[in-house]
């Protein structure tokens, strides 16, 4: 169920050197230059990843359904707040139940990151559509990922419609979840019923994304 893809780290060799391409829509002429940054209201930057078996996946594979991108790090207390409480797995299950794709991403240069992530997800009963290790940080930089968690929603047409926090109460205390507004649930409900997302950008909170290098 839990397909896992590695962006670059698993085989740090020549084969995967060009495995990740992050391209901004309409910026093909810049080719190898810096990709365009993710901006809410504009097409989400495309990305292509290769799994450990060499099979390519891309954001475009999910076209026609909304996609949630979730930056995570199992060692971060803010992530643990939302996993130990069951809040994030429940948010995932709710989204998948509405035919939304969910991509969990960890930016990490650690060679063991993928196996650590997937075994931890198993413990927490987390079953995203797929999980990805952003080994060189390029995906994180393109999306402007700053915190774990940091959440993004791409709508069925490929437009970025949400960027920000999981919910409205910035804290590391699970007791605060009950009184918080879950921005991902709210934005998915809105986008799935054809409404504009009322809170399209919020300030994310959490640990720093661990960029390699």
């Amino acid at each position, binding site marked *: 169920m839990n397909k896992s893809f590695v962006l670059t780290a698993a085989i740090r060799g020549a084969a995967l050197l060009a495995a990740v391409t992050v391209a901004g829509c309409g910026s093909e002429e810049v080719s190898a230059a810096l990709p365009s940054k993710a901006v809410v209201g504009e097409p989400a930057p495309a990305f292509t990843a290769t799994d450990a078996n060499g099979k390519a996946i891309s954001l475009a594979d999910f076209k026609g359904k909304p996609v949630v991108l979730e930056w995570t790090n199992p060692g971060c207390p803010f992530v643990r707040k939302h996993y130990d409480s069951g809040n994030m797995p429940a948010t995932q299950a709710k989204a998948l139940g509405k035919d939304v794709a969910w991509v969990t991403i960890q930016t990490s240069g650690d060679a063991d990151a993928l196996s650590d992530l997937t075994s931890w997800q198993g413990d927490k009963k987390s079953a995203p559509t797929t999980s990805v290790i952003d080994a060189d*940080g390029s995906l994180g930089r393109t999306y402007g990922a700053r915190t774990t968690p940091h959440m993004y929603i791409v709508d069925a047409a490929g437009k970025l419609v949400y960027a920000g926090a999981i919910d409205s109460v910035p804290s590391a205390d699970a007791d605060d979840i009950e009184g918080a507004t879950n921005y991902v649930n709210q934005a998915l409900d809105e986008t799935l019923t054809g409404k504009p997302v009322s809170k399209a*950008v919020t300030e994310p909170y959490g640990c720093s994304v661990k960029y390699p290098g």
Partner: protein
Amino acid sequence: MLERFRIIGFPMQSRSLAFLLMTVASGVQASGTESAAVVTEHTRASLITDAQQDVVAGGEITVGLQLEHQPGWHSYWKNPGDSGLPTTMRWTLPTGVVAGPIAWPTPAQFRDGPLLNFGYGGAVLLPVRITIPADFKADVLEIGVRARWLVCAEICIAEAGEFALRLPAGKAVAQERLPATNDAFARTQARFPIDLGGIVPARVTGTQVVFSMAQLPEAYRGKDLELYPETGGVVDHSEPVLQAWAERSWTARLPVSPQRSESPEFLDIVVKLPGEPSGSRIRLQIEGWSSP
């Protein structure tokens, strides 16, 4: 309790860790100028009072959460920057006694790869003004606070503590207290940003907020300054701020975050020379935000 502190000895840096751990383990309730401390592997935290001030009806006193970080660890400012979390305090006070907001000292920058944070390493005191009502009649002012703070180095730990102070009220007790806490408040006074007053007009131009001003201190002239926006969700903190001097006039171009969540009319920014403990606060009035 005061005597005991004297025996242990000030200044604070010389107090032994063994004693501090004992304090926590035994749950000893300190009275006077410092609460019992909470000591973790990364932080020593306590609530202290400014010994210069007496507890009288209709008056006010200043207390403060003192955080002493282990080397390499830091906690966060009111705007933590790209990640992190500001320290918070939830007060338990007698009826009519009111706690104000945290008076945040000037922070420092902490760079983490492509990300930038604002906070405090070493020791920091976060002062809060407590206002006592005119009809306050108790002999003792009991102050309780639950503080939460995030300390980060390579990793982050969410820490919290409950602190209590019992302060004799209605009489002059300042002379009985100890000098070290006074020093902490005096040192912090020197770390508050100085409000330059007035409003600096700023305009959104493309992906930048551009403004010029001539009110900055003489010592800043010609230098590259650090900028600390007091509100998050506006500025791309980790991007360099393009800045230029022309005689006394300083022009800065703040990079707007590609994922901006706020469009404030007014934005307070602390500006300082790198390495200086204190800065200056300026208030921008920003025109030209595009929707939303």
